[in-house]
């Protein structure tokens, strides 16, 4: 329910939830602010307002700034931000179109603000998690102590499609398997962050984090300055020095390249952007040749030896001799050169084992096993379909759960219980029984909302939309989390899908010093 501000000056009006889970709860919102006329609160955590409807202190300045801007000025800044995105060529590729059309990445003008205290906890939690997962990969691909000690079942590891037997007994430089991670976090009703999933293979999106920061600094310079936001612009340098530190021994001046699947990949813009920012060559598989287990790139001045490959090509496609034989994106013989220790790949092969959705349930145990610490960032409660008690529990509660196929990503192969029919539930029950290893179930999550600038250009309003957070973690000679990340927004009202192919967008993420 919404009312125009001028009819009820200074009145607190009930705003009613439209969230799927019922359990309605109301909260007052200050309706003297014309931009907030469509704002609503319910049991979902709101990033800007507390449960009483009061503005959280760190959002006060932002809200005041936006509220004080006339519509025309807002429109003007929005317009110049649009132009800035377009001229920087910040696009992603939409598949299925004849020519692979490039589109502007949708973005929101209101930054998401994270306090210093909140961030410190996130940072410690991510460093802990990535350290443990990296130790886990090193252990599983070598001694397998954790399997012997029974903390992670062997079946889960060996049945994972991303487990690479080829990696057994291989020493990777500095024992770092996961140089780059993007971990997806959600904030639940109680205000705490939980880990939804780790992306340990070829995480993307960091270029949007960097470019939207540039645009926001230009659009709101004073607000940005008074907030005291931690910088993120050094990400390319940190990445480059992480990659450099992972070079094979005896290569003090390593040549580093970024390997892209090519111009038709949806993240191609990001590949060109990062290569340019780091000042390294952007190569495709056909630019590389292997001779005597040494990797070279073809240049007009002859063959040039390559030492470190920041690869944005999946395991499956990277070497037709070692993995999928029908891949034309990869380089024949690359895996042998890698095993011979003549080239470093970041990330290593087989890291997908540690972001398997079934293995995810064991990450808290993995952290306790290697670090003897309790996890700082909790997991989402997860039911394993391979466990008969958990499976029976899930079957009895399918209408309240989300069922996910472990091998799929991007919202495919999912059953969302509250929005499903009896037939769909029955179908998933059959599928789970046929292949329990392939599925997990989790409770339906109601994650936090952040204020977004919605409405037409001449009639803007601030409305809450669901957001997640993907910080990027770099691992070279040490683990570094760049303070910020990609905040993805489900721009459609009521939607929980933040994926850019399905109506999602992004917004700048401000981590404060204080």
């Amino acid at each position: 329910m919404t009312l125009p501000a001028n009819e009820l000056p200074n009145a607190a009006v009930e705003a009613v939830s439209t969230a799927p889970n019922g359990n309605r709860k109301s909260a007052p919102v200050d309706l003297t602010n014309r931009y907030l006329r469509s704002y609503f609160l319910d049991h979902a955590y709101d990033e800007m307002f507390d449960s009483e409807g009061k503005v959280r202190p760190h959002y006060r300045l932002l809200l005041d700034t936006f509220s004080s801007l006339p519509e025309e000025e807002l429109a003007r800044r929005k317009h110049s931000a649009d132009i800035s995105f377009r001229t920087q060529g910040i696009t992603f590729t939409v598949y299925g179109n004849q020519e692979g059309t490039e589109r502007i990445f949708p973005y929101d003008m209101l930054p998401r603000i994270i306090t210093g205290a909140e961030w410190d906890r996130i940072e410690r939690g991510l460093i802990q998690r990535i350290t443990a997962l990296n130790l886990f990969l090193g252990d599983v691909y070598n001694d397998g102590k954790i399997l012997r000690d029974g903390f992670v079942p062997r079946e889960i590891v060996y049945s994972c499609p991303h487990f690479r037997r080829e990696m057994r007994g291989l020493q990777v430089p500095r024992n770092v398997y996961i140089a780059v991670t993007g971990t997806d976090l959600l904030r639940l009703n109680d205000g705490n962050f939980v880990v939804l999933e780790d992306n340990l293979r070829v995480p993307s999106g960091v270029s949007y984090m960097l470019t939207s920061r540039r645009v926001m600094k230009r659009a709101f310079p004073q607000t940005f300055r008074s907030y005291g936001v931690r910088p993120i612009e050094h990400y390319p340098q940190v990445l480059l020095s992480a990659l450099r530190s992972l070079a094979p021994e005896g290569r003090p001046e390593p040549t580093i390249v970024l390997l892209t699947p090519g111009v038709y990949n949806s993240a191609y813009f990001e590949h060109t952007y990062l290569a340019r920012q780091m000042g390294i060559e952007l190569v495709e598989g056909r630019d590389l040749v292997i001779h005597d287990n040494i990797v070279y790139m073809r240049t007009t001045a002859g063959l040039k030896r390559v030492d470190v490959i920041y690869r944005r090509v999946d395991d499956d496609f990277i070497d037709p001799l070692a993995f999928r034989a029908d891949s034309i994106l990869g380089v024949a013989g690359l895996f042998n050169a890698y095993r011979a220790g003549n080239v470093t790949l970041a990330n290593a092969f087989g890291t997908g084992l540690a972001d398997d959705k079934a293995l995810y349930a064991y990450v808290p145990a993995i952290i306790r096993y290697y670090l003897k610490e309790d996890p700082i960032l909790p997991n989402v409660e997860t039911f394993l379909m391979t466990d008969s008690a958990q499976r029976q529990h899930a079957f009895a509660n399918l209408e309240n759960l989300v069922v996910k196929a472990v091998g799929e990503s991007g919202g495919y192969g999912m059953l969302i219980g509250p929005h499903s029919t009896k037939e769909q539930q029955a179908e998933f029950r059959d599928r789970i029984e046929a292949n329990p290893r392939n599925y997990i179930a989790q409770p339906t999550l109601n994650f936090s909302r952040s204020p977004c600038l919605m409405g037409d250009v001449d009639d803007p309003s601030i409305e809450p939309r669901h957001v997640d957070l993907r910080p990027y973690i770099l691992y070279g000679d040490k683990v570094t989390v760049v303070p910020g990340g990609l905040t993805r927004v489900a721009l459609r009202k009521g939607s929980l899908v933040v994926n850019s192919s399905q109506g999602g967008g992004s917004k700048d993420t401000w981590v404060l010093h204080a």
Partner: protein
Amino acid sequence: MLSRVADSLYWMSRYLERAEHTVRMLDVNFSMTLDPSSTSEEGRWKRVLAALGNPEGLEWNGDFYALAHALAFDRESRASITGCIAAARENARQVREEITSEQWQQLNRMYHRVTDEVPEKGDRLDEFPASTLNDLHLFQGATDTSMSHGEGWHFIQIGRAIERATAIATLIGVFDWDASESVSEGAGSQQFLEWIGLLRCCTAFESYCNVYTADLTQPQILQFLLLNKEFPHSVRYSIDQLRWALMALQEGSGRLVAEELSRVAGRLQASLNFCEISEVMAQGVGPYVHNISHQCRHIHSLIYRDYIHYKVHVALSQ
């Protein structure tokens, strides 16, 4: 520079040069078809196709408008103007980070202008050549003024020089010189028109007049189009540019000797620099220009052998 990048820049440049040449051929012959002429419509357009290397899929079927339309807008043909611009853009897209935003935006704008709306047969033929030439010139300007004149730029120069020299040589080769010789005594007005058309296809008419006045003779026209030192569409000028870019490339790369390539390109340049037009005419214009095209193809394959598709064991032994 990655070999793949050099390859894309080279072909981007060749396709744009080809588009420009085709635009001019279309525009000039379109207006010449309107005048009464000793050459039949069929003969003229068959010669246009021959000058463009008889591209696949483009044929004379008696309908002049259909052919002109296809030459301008047939997206499927790599010989049409639209097809060339699309191919150039595709090459540029592969190396987006190697060219400047000014270049990319101009190429993109041009591409969208020619592909967004395909007109009915016979439409837009008045406006299309002029605006496309204008776009191509803008791209040329953006390239010269915004891109570093380093290795990538040299590959662009090489692509353009080879394409241009080949195109002009082929055009001269298919021109009916015998017919023009027989009437040159009386110098009929129709013959003048043919000569003016030839010069205009090479954007040479005004420059020619600056050198020789409007006095059109066969030896002078050949001298100008083949051997002029200053005119940018003469064969000699293109080969001078090619040679210069190849030398800059070798200096820059520091490694490659590319001995055979230097020798072949140098010999071609010398033969154009020290040649007399009377010798060419005695030997026969056809065989002479045919040999130039042949040399250009040879240079192209040597560039590819040395810089792009070299064998791994050869490169490692150097």
